[in-house]
């Protein structure tokens, strides 16, 4: 059966082909996507039949993580719940693919669109097939990023970008809960394999965890409650439950086929799916189930009231989805997991149909760029009205019939909590009433607007060819919904699904009877009352006058503004966060930490400068300069006073006198006396010199010198012959005797 791995692999292959083959595929992208998803749908049907015959089975894939004792083995787990959701996912996705191939014609990012919806389909398939909480978390997030990319498909519009960011961020807040739930599950059970967890869950029923111990509080909470609540937090985000619903109405910025995928396939249904998948664990914690039921009911009533006040068709559709999912969450909280799945399938078919049939009108809205109050008057609306009306009736009547048919009340009563039963009835009927009311009203509004008010002429841009999938879905609604229910396949459905939702729930559903069931009749009456109220409100009767009253108007305005959730988040979450970020960056980081470090640096620099200026310049330099200046001053004084005044004058005076004396000397002695003597002596010496030269120099000295030269030559030869050492020896001896002689001389001299 491992070939069933092709169910997710086919869409994944389509993604790869589309991404790699982008330059070649161009406008033919749908020719890759459609066959892949359609084949996957066919395989899903085969898987369905296999599960019907043999029950659940699993296909191991590979080991994702192995770190010590933390081992995550990925694998596909296919049971009754999986195949039902697979049928929904691949069925809706195939139809959406076919529809989009016409709807998106001419889009500049045609290829990208098909790649992402294939990836979206792949992640939905993997989500429902996960055998492992971590794997589920992974594809939960991949689905989130796909929706981000699809919502921002027409990203040139500012609102599309904002809507996409908002969708992902709201979900990522919720996913903190989911992620923490996964971690908590691991640290409790030591594994992330879902089936192992579910089988071990009853054993852990009474384990407690003191989450706030670090605050010094002793507040042990049952671990199963904590895990369920944290997982449910993730579900609240993805399934748009109050107060995390704000992203879904804005997600309408996506192209209509994407909205169909988000609303009809497993994107928003992921929350109920998660609860149903974990149902054996969830049912262990009545407290968590109470929270789940209350939040679901609150969402359902809230969305019903809001959608009645809205005029924008996209908002009506979005809030109707929120409300329906709220209803499913509530049924999960009441323990009616099977009902939730049944409801989910019916709602998926219906919502897919609604989106695709209003798609062309919606496209006209997109083309016009303004929202309109009503979409109607389109040629296609009348023929497809009947299956639609059937689907609405089914949706409105089905859940109460099933929930209040008896067994689920027992679950609540058995919790030994008296108000629970009243809460169950009160909440249940309120929800049933409003859901029936707005569903009927909303749908009738969509399709029965008098002609002329809409824009039938504008919406003709889409060729009629692509209405066939709508008819297909319509038929699916009729066959799947009314068929299932009216032919009383419900019991078979319960039989089929009960292995997947745990023993305890299954037993309760066993004793089911339609007739003679008072709560059942009451709930049908309530639902019918809702339908009637819807009709009234549509045809300007009591509800409209209620709207005119002062009290009514106030509430009308509140709900028209969706109870100001968006504004509240903007004012108290988004802006403060951004403000805190800016403030902490400017003050803490730049001025504080950076300032501290830079201050330290500046301090060092300052100290250095002070040292330089004060100590170095003023101190040492000043000292040196002072000394210098003093010495210069001293020198100046010395020069001025001593030198110029004293010495100079003396010198000058002396000078003057010596000059006079010198002049006298020169004139009297030099010129007259000495000069004459010298001249006389000069003349005589010249005569003597001539005589000396002639006689002594030439005759005597010259000869002697010549002789001396000869003797020196002889002596040189003699010395050359003497051995150098002997010469030194002689020299030393000579020096010795010289010294001795000189010593004797000295001694004699001193001695005397």
């Amino acid at each position, binding site marked *: 059966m491992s070939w069933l791995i092709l169910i997710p692999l086919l869409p994944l292959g389509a993604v790869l082909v589309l991404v790699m083959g982008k330059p070649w595929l161009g406008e033919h992208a749908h020719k890759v996507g459609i066959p892949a998803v359609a084949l996957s749908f066919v395989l899903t049907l085969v898987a369905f039949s296999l599960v019907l015959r043999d029950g659940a089975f699993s296909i191991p894939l*590979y*080991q*994702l*993580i*192995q*770190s*010590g*004792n*933390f081992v995550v083995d990925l694998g596909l787990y296919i049971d009754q719940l999986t195949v039902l959701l697979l049928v929904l996912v691949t069925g809706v996705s195939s139809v959406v693919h076919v529809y989009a191939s016409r709807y998106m014609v001419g889009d*500049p*990012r045609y290829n*990208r669109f098909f790649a992402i919806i294939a990836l979206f389909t792949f992640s939905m398939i993997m989500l429902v097939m996960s055998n492992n909480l*971590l794997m589920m*978390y*992974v*594809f*939960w*997030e*991949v689905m989130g*990023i796909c929706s*981000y*990319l699809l919502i*921002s498909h027409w*990203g*040139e519009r*500012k609102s*599309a*970008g*904002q809507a*996409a*960011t908002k969708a*992902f*961020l709201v979900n*990522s*807040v919720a996913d*903190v809960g989911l*992620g*923490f739930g996964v*971690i*908590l599950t*691991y*640290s409790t059970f030591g594994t992330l394999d879902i089936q192992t967890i579910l089988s071990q869950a009853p054993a852990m029923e009474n384990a407690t*965890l003191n*989450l706030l*111990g*670090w605050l010094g509080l002793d507040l042990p909470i049952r671990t199963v409650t904590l895990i369920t609540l944290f997982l449910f937090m993730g579900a609240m985000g993805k399934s748009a439950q109050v107060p995390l619903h704000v992203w879904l109405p804005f997600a309408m910025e996506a192209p209509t086929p994407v909205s169909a995928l988000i609303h009809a396939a497993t994107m928003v249904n992921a929350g109920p799916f998660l609860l149903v998948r974990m149902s054996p664990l969830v049912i262990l914690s009545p407290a968590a189930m109470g929270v789940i039921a209350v939040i679901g009911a609150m969402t359902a009533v809230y969305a019903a009231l809001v959608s009645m006040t809205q005029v924008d068709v996209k908002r009506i559709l979005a809030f109707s989805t929120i409300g329906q999912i709220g209803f499913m969450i509530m049924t999960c909280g009441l323990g009616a997991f099977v009902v939730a799945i049944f409801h989910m399938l019916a709602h998926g078919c219906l919502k897919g149909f609604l989106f695709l049939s209003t798609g062309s009108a919606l496209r006209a809205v997109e083309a016009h760029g303004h929202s309109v109050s009503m979409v109607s008057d389109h040629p296609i609306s009348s023929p497809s009205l009947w299956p639609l009306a059937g689907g609405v009736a089914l949706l409105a009547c089905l859940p109460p019939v099933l929930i209040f048919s008896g067994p689920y009340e027992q679950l609540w009563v058995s919790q030994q909590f008296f108000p629970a039963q009243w809460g169950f009835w009160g909440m249940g009927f309120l929800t049933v009433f409003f859901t029936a009311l707005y569903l009927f009203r909303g749908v009738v509004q969509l399709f029965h607007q008098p002609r002329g008010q809409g824009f039938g002429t504008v919406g003709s841009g889409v060729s009629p060819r692509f209405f066939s999938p709508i008819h297909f879905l319509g038929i699916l609604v009729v066959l799947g919904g009314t068929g299932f229910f009216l032919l009383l396949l419900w019991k078979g459905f319960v039989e089929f699904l009960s292995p997947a939702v745990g023993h305890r729930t299954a037993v309760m559903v066993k004793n089911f009877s339609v007739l003679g069931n008072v709560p059942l009749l009451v709930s049908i009456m309530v639902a019918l009352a809702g339908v009637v109220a819807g009709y009234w409100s549509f045809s300007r009767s009591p509800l409209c006058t209620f709207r005119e009253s002062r009290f009514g108007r106030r509430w009308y305005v509140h709900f028209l503004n969706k109870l100001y959730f968006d504004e509240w988040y903007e004012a108290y979450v988004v802006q403060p*966060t*951004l403000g*805190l*970020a*800016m403030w*902490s*960056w*400017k003050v803490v*980081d730049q001025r504080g*930490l*950076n300032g501290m*470090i830079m201050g330290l*640096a500046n301090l060092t620099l300052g100290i250095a400068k002070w040292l330089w200026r004060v100590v170095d310049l003023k101190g040492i330099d000043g000292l040196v300069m002072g000394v210098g200046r003093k010495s210069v001053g001293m020198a100046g004084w010395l020069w001025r006073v001593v030198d110029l005044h004293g010495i100079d004058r003396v010198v000058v005076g002396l000078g003057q006198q010596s000059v006079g004396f010198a002049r006298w000397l020169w004139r009297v002695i030099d010129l007259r006396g000495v000069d004459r003597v010298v001249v006389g002596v000069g003349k005589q010496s010249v005569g003597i010199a001539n005589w000396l030269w002639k006689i002594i120099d030439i005759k005597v000295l010259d000869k002697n010198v010549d002789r001396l030269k000869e003797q020196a030559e002889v002596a040189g030869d003699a010395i050359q012959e003497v051995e150098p050492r002997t010469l030194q020896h002689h020299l030393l001896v000579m020096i010795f005797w010289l010294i001795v002689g000189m010593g004797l001389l000295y001694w004699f001299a001193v001695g005397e």
Partner: protein
Amino acid sequence: MTTLFTEHLLSLMIAIPFLGIAMIACIHDQEWIRRVAFGCTVVDFLLALALLSGFDFSNQGMQFVERMQWMPTFNIQYAVGVDGISLLLVMLTTLLCPFAVLCSWKSITVRVRSFMAMILLVEGAMIVVFAALDLFLFFMLWEVTMIPMYFMIILWGGPQRIAAGIKFVLYSLSGSLVLLLAILGLFVEGGKTFDILMLAERTYTPEAQFWIFLAFFLAFAIKLPMLPFHTWLPDAHSEAPTAGSVILAGVLLKMGGYGFLRFCLPMFPEASVMFAPYILWLSVAGILYGGYMALAQSDLKKLVAYSSISHMGFVTLGIFVFNNHGIQGAILQMVNHGITTGALFLAVGQLYDRTHSRAIQDYGGLQKPMPRFVAFFCLFSVASFGLPGTCNFIGEFLVLVGTSFESYMMVLVAMGGIVLAAAYMLWMLQRVVLGQPRTPAISQLSDLSMREMATVIPLAVLVLWIGLYPSPLMEMMDSSVTHLVQQMAPYQANALSELVFK
């Protein structure tokens, strides 16, 4: 031949960048300088693959060990070797450096030779830092990495480059100072040797542990950087040229994390356990704080830089919970952060090359003119905030699983950091990629060229591959980490942390 090759493989890897520097010193043609530098980095990466193929995963000790006496008087030797932890970081270093060369092909036109030499120098130095088995060698090359980074910032950087460069050097030097003190202290306490393996086997007195741990911690915390010591990082990252940012964020920061794993934990287990609670809270604070800071940025590079601080918080968080999951997660987080943040800096650099602006408000509507760029940019951005299916998720998730054994509160707070990460990344994407083009010039931008595609495709493949099939990486470090955890185990029983958490 083969034995000779494997015996000296690490030294060969270290030598090749230096040989490359010598080669480009002799070349005059700029184009050939680039080619040679690229060739050297690629060869180094191929050698790293050879290292990987010869690595014995079941062996927890050091492999490919080479020892040589260097300064025998002080017992200093040239000793290198890798275990599972350092192998991954060496791989990361050699992986990112070719991209650093490729991304500066067109954007660096002046002083090409010195720029390429800087890249090669820092690559060689980082390989030694990750492979060093001698404390002195480690310290010396630790210092060497700082120099090329400084010059890359001040010579080829942005408008504020001088201030950023000086800040970087001042911080690094203060870190080095305490590191030097720690090393000297360890030398004295550890029996006058610089051999890391021998030092790791000794036990130290509690007082010595306290002080030396503190000094080591301070040095590594500055490098990593941890919360109060991070202010050098945004400036240095944003002012550095693209290649500088890639190397800085991709590899250089990891030296801090590596230091914790190589020195703090095995050498001072008691001090580590004692300080752990404070470090863990500091890490968690850093995760949130970095996220908040990134949210406030109007400069693309600064946004990525602050996100690094947040991611590094996960690294210290994982290391100081002292269990397999945490430490493996932390190492994976280091590798993944290197890949995703490196890729983000590459992408921002590609934008900067076209418009010469880093301001977020100057962009918008890039989806239309640059679809290919946008696809990769989105992938790296979502990987950066840890989208499941991309690599960062595995690291962060493992760290969180590891942390959950210590304190659930910390897990919740750290997960808040992931929400913040999604917020700043998606908000940035919304302003840069979606919407209408800010100016007509934006809508005329050209899409990625083949060379630019070549820089981002391998990283994109790695992001998805590690995200979907991380087992090979985990297997690589498994035995080394297990060994480390076993070393720590006896000291955790009497941990101070019991008083602080639970």
